[in-house]
């Protein structure tokens, strides 16, 4: 085990990673958020969901560095007297949770369907690819919007809707890989002996799809977080009881015209930062895993 670990640190991947300002910045940002959502709630001055701890007298306080600011509420408060910073920490949690769960589910579902379609071929494959093509010709956000509009808000519904929209890319990649493997001679050889080639194909396919899937998944997390933020902003995403960063922006929008900008600007900034960090990593991974050097 230690030999493997040592090998990784000497690898070209690691070498390039630590020398890439983008990748390191991305890692930093993502780590920051991970730490924030795991340890944050322990340190936030306030639990924004605990109605009892809110005081309407605290409402609309600006950030601490502005006139009228209160050091107890570093980034200001919203219309309910909720501390914005605390709300953002909890909101990041929700956004990240949705991002990760959707990606994991989409990946599993997509890989499964891609494997099935690729392996069995024929009608099943055609049907699946049809669905994929049709679904890809419509913007993901719109489909998710429609589903959420129809079934109402809710965390579970949101994750389901985004998964329904998200499995497609994984399925297509995996299917492609399976098709390539199927053409190879060992498949015929196995069949001749009477063995099912499926486990062997699997063994060959999995290492090949690992890197593309990692790249797709990483970028997908960013996409999901943005989509969820947008849907929540439109009012069809997360329920009001579990405000994600997107919903926080929406709440802030309502008071924007009175000049109270912080409750929409800061949460939005957080979204941007998080997605940017993820994209930095995703970009690096994609370039790294690209078979450009022949």
């Amino acid at each position, binding site marked *: 085990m230690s030999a493997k670990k040592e090998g990784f640190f000497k690898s070209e991947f690691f070498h390039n990673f630590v020398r890439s300002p*983008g990748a390191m910045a991305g890692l930093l940002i993502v780590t920051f958020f991970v730490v924030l959502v795991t340890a944050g709630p322990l340190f936030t001055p306030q639990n924004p969901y605990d109605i009892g701890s809110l005081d309407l007298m605290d409402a609309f306080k600006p950030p601490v560095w502005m006139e009228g600011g209160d050091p107890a509420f570093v980034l200001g408060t919203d219309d309910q007297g909720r501390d914005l910073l605390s709300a953002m920490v909890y909101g990041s949690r929700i956004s990240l949770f949705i991002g990760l769960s959707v990606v994991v589910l989409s990946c599993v579902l997509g890989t499964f369907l891609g494997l099935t379609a690729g392996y069995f071929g024929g009608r099943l494959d055609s049907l699946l690819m049809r669905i994929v093509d*049709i679904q890809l*010709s*419509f*913007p993901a*956000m*719109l489909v998710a*919007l*429609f*589903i959420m*509009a*129809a*079934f*109402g808000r809710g965390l579970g519904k949101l994750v389901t809707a985004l998964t329904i929209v998200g499995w497609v890319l994984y399925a297509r990649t995996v299917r492609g890989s399976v098709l390539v493997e199927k053409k190879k001679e060992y498949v015929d050889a196995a069949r001749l002996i009477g063995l099912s080639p499926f486990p062997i194909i699997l063994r060959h396919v999995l290492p090949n799809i690992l890197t593309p899937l990692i790249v797709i998944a990483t970028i997908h997390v*960013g996409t999901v977080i*943005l989509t969820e*933020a*947008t849907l929540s*902003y*439109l*009012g*069809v995403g997360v329920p009001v009881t579990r405000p994600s960063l*997107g919903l926080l*922006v929406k709440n*802030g*929008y309502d008071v*924007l*015209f009175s*000049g109270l*900008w912080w409750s*929409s*600007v800061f949460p*939005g*900034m957080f*979204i*941007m930062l998080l*997605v*940017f960090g*993820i*994209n*930095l990593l995703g*970009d690096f991974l994609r370039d790294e895993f690209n078979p*450009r050097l022949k």
Partner: protein
Amino acid sequence: MLKYLLKRLVQMIVVLFTVSVIVFLVMSFTGDPVLMIVPPTATDAQIAEARTALGLDRPLWVQYGVFLQNLLRGDLGVSYIFKRPALTLIVERMPATLELVFFSVLLSLAVALPCGVYAGARPNSPFSRAVMGGSLLGISLPSFWVGILLIFYFAVEKGLLPSSGRGATAPLFGIPFAFLTWDGFRHIVLPAVTLALGTLAMLIRLIRAQIMEVMRQDFIRFARAKGVSWRSLFFSHALKNALVPVVTVFGMQIGSLIAFATVTETIFAWPGMGKLLVDSINTADRPVIVAYLMIVAAIFVLINFLVDIVYTLIDPRIDLR
């Protein structure tokens, strides 16, 4: 050629048909529209009456049949809220959305093409690196947040540009467009910029990547071995080859723009189809939602078709099978 067109037509119809089924099914499971129509004080008998009047007491597949029939006749239902045909409502608002999308596209292309091409030609220059960093940020931005920032700075703080609405319009071929008036044009600036940002960022990256990809290919090397100058290599050989796939992607993006216009229109209270959709979702105005989806589906299918046609025209390798 004709065979291909027919084949595509059939495909498009199949897709639209599938969409209609899905839309119908999903919508029919969401809440009871009757309760939207009748006043809260209605008796059970009145509710039952309303239900029959709307044809909601009949079996699902019959309802779908009626739906389909009406669809083919151009009748997409009547809005519960506005009490007017849904189709009319949408068509009325289409020009607003279209001009918004149009200007966003124009803006995106105007910025992305030169920047992307330059970044592709000199991939390691400081400009290129800045562009890459900026565009990565660009695709990480939540568009609604950008809209809010723009509103706050330009409208609330500085009062330079209006924060919402469409402003005055002037007719072109009888259709009212905002950009034809100065007031309307002022109103379109912020929304168009907001909408353009995401696409712009994506396009720059795509163009740069494509150009770099093409410059690596064998035929470029061969041309170089012929003694062709770098300038010729880039502009006569690489560029066209690089931009052909960009056309396809961009075509698909237009569909995405129409979708994201919903958000932009909501932020800026721009009276387009997108805003209508969001409002209808909030008021559970089912017929309008269904009508919007069907129309937008038709638009996407059409766009895909057109993009394919354009692609066959510019790439001589594609044979119309």
